[in-house]
């Protein structure tokens, strides 16, 4: 009886751990799929698309997650096959300097203008 109890507890524990792990994988899969562009659809992520291309990518991502690939490894694999365009979140490189740095530059210049205006007003 005691052995049966131990087995039952162990079984439940493994079941819960498995469920937790599946849930974790699903969250990661959804996160990755939402960040991948469907290359044959207009303005849709792979997550939202039902195209043949998107369903193949979904299968690949699922397979890679199940075999223990990290998020970065999956993005790197897709980048190698299709280029930077497939990822919604582009890497900082010579083609994306303006994209990354312009908002920061505008924010800083806006801040500087505001700071100057406020200090002039305070001096008056």
């Amino acid at each position, binding site marked *: 009886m005691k052995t049966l109890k131990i087995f039952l507890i162990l079984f439940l524990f493994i079941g819960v751990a498995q469920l937790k792990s599946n849930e974790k994988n699903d969250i990661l899969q959804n996160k990755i799929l939402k960040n991948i562009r469907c290359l044959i659809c207009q303005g849709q992520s792979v997550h939202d698309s039902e195209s043949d291309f998107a369903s193949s*990518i979904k299968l690949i991502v699922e397979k890679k997650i199940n075999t223990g690939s990290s998020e970065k490894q999956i993005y790197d694999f897709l980048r190698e096959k299709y280029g930077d365009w497939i990822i919604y979140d582009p890497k900082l490189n010579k083609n994306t300097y303006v994209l990354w740095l312009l908002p920061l530059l505008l924010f800083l210049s806006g801040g500087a203008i505001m700071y100057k205006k406020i200090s002039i007003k305070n001096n008056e």
Partner: protein
Amino acid sequence: MKNKFTILIVFIFLSFCFAIFYKGLNSSNTYTPKTHDKKNIPIFRAKDFNSNINIDSKKIFEENIFYVVNIWASWCVPCRKEHPLLMELSKNKSVKLIGLNYRDNSINAKNFINEFGNPYAQILIDNDGMLAVEFGAYGVPETFLIDKDKKIIQKFVGPISQQIVKEIELIIE
């Protein structure tokens, strides 16, 4: 003076924005893949179309010749258009054609081959499209030229034309 300077800054900023948006108007908003990147062929295992036996990619590309990998499906209309050209290319002994049957029904695919002829030395089954992704393809038809170093040296998106066949033959020679 200060007013003029502000106007100049605003003018430069607006011109910059205009230039970016104008450039964006002219560039394509659809995916345009790079077709000249030298990439290694993927390592995979796939089912043979005729025997249903799993084969390693190393065995498929073992000969020291050029290979053409063509992704096709019986439901794909442009594939019918390019098929006679593939038949023509298959007569060239310096190249081996490998077909990748993409997300297809096996009976329809067999009927397609029986009706239009078989240009392929080997046909592989890609039921879920994962093999096509390994090659970096995103639809059908798509054709890859692989050199003797087993590198993908050219990628042709869409149906191949007579001009493309000539281009392939020129590279092979």
